[in-house]
């Protein structure tokens, strides 16, 4: 029987000829990523070895990546102390894929894994972050795990007791209309299948819309697959994947893992992208999605552009195009945080940062920051945010008495100028 991409990857990683949904495996891990929660992973890892009489020993420091992004620079002495502990661990264990709080190597973990070429098609990738699904954009099986599970990976190099997930095939056809972006597409999909529609399953994306989509857009789709509950999103590797990795400095041969023609899917969904309008996820669940025409006019206190979802250079380019020569509305504040320092510097060279600062927007340092209400950019009681980030749960942006709407960078920029939810399509407001 034919296999899906993830079934093929898991068969390879566990040394089997073929696997099927429900099989329990111990796949070998190619990349194991953590951020500041490595502090907890270190505790659990020490605990694993405690009482064994063994010295702690990482299975392979070269496959471990640690990137500081959730609280950079540290917002509290507690965080700074955790970061110091991780830095010492990294040094002691010779972990090279370490990205500290520096403008020559730093950024959000998911963007760093992508732009440093750490991922390849066919890899098994785990990360102590739910948005680890992002790397499915490279044709890898990439999923989030908890800190204790990561401690187990650090010690053994395999993920224990993985049940082969079923796969949903989503076929997207047609050209995205002007002002409609991959973010709108994934919000539409999440709204359609619900926040639990893909729980314990993989979403495999196909169709000409996906084939014609640059890596930046594919990263958006896979990043937010977890908001439908998916274990991972995945997109078959192709020339676009190889081209991106080559530009990232990868020189080894790229071998794509493609699904068999007779692979078995637990569901097939077809979507016509050519008829979409910009989409908005309304408070307080990501699947509460409406076309913009139904929510236009909601007054916004804070606009956010950034995150591992939509903080890449093309997102900033879209925003700069809309904000050029315009001002952020007087009663609205705008925060922009690029997904990495290399994007920040690229945006500086291209003049986008100047456009943003002339418009009244605040340019923040790359990191996760206000997306999850950890530091900076918290909402006041009763305030409303419109954000290109990935979650709008109650309390997400630091205040349970605030509301968060999610959208594309184009809608965010157009709404920043208007002061209320506003379409980027000219003449539609």
């Amino acid at each position, binding site marked *: 029987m034919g296999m899906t991409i993830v079934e093929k990857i898991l068969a390879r990683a566990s040394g089997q000829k073929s696997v099927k949904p429900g099989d329990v495996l111990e796949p070998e891990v190619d990349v194991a990523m953590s951020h500041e929660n490595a502090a907890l992973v270190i505790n659990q890892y020490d605990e694993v070895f405690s009482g064994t009489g063994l010295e702690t020993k990482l299975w392979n420091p070269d496959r471990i990546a640690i990137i500081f992004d959730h609280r950079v620079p540290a917002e509290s002495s507690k965080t700074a102390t955790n970061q110091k502990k991780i830095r010492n661990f990294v040094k002691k264990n010779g972990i090279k894929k370490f990205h500290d709080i520096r403008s020559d190597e730093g950024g959000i973990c998911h963007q760093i894994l992508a732009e440093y070429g750490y991922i390849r098609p066919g890899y098994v990738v785990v990360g102590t972050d739910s948005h680890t699904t992002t790397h499915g954009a490279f044709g890898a099986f990439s999923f989030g795990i908890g*800190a204790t*599970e990561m401690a187990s990976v650090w010690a053994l190099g395999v993920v224990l007791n993985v049940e082969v997930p079923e796969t949903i095939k989503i076929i997207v056809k047609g050209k995205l209309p002007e002002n409609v972006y991959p973010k709108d597409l994934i919000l539409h999909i999440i709204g359609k299948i619900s926040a639990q529609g893909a729980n314990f399953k993989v979403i495999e994306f196909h169709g000409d819309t996906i084939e014609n989509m640059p890596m930046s857009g594919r990263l958006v789709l896979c990043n937010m697959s977890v908001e439908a509950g998916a274990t991972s999103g995945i997109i078959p590797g192709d020339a676009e994947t190889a081209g991106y990795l080559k530009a990232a400095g990868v020189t080894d041969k790229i071998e794509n893992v493609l699904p068999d023609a007779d692979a078995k899917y637990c569901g097939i969904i077809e979507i016509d992208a050519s008829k979409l309008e910009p989409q908005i996820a309304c408070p307080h669940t990501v699947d509460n999605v409406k076309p913009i025409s139904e929510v236009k006019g909601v007054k916004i206190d804070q606009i956010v552009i950034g995150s591992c979802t939509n903080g890449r250079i093309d997102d900033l380019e879209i925003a700069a195009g809309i904000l050029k020569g315009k001002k952020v509305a007087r009663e609205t504040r705008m925060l922009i945080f690029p997904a990495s320092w290399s994007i920040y510097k690229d945006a500086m060279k291209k003049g986008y940062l100047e456009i943003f600062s002339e418009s009244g927007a605040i340019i923040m340092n790359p990191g996760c920051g206000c997306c999850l209400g950890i530091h900076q950019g918290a909402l006041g009681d009763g305030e409303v945010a419109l954000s290109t980030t990935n979650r709008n749960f109650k*309390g997400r942006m630091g205040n349970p008495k605030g509301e968060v709407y999610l959208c594309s960078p184009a809608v965010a920029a157009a709404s920043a100028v208007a002061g209320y939810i506003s379409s980027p399509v000219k003449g539609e407001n």
Partner: protein
Amino acid sequence: MAKVVYKFGDDISTDAIYPGRYMATVLPTETPQFCFADYTELNKKLNSGEYPKGSVIIADNNFGCGSSREQAASTINGHELVVIAKNYARIFLQNSINLGLNLITCPDLEASVGDDIELEGKEVVNKTTGKRFGTLPLPEARMAIVEAGGLIPYTRKKVMEKYKV
């Protein structure tokens, strides 16, 4: 037997269970104080002991959706709450099993705050209404971890096998 102290709906996120602003706190000994921090009354009664250890919280679908933060499991574990939901999000479910948290999957449960709940074998019994409800087992793949008492002892055994201690 224990009382239901709170009834949640669908899609209770890890941000609701353990808000992001407390994520710098990681140790299981320290996370319980922030359990359901934005549900002010619930948090207060858990911390004061007015809701004793072993109390029951019930929820509908997709409990624990969102982030991979293990604090969401350790904070509930610290109060030794019994969680009964229709179903769970994947990472939260796995984190809970890894830490030995007692998650019960009961798709048809009918109960209200204040009801007395008893677990009898594979059934949840609502002693207040007299109704009994079937439960679903944890994923087969995870049973070995449950039986070992959590992922740390399970991994420790594997590490000792690997290095032939």
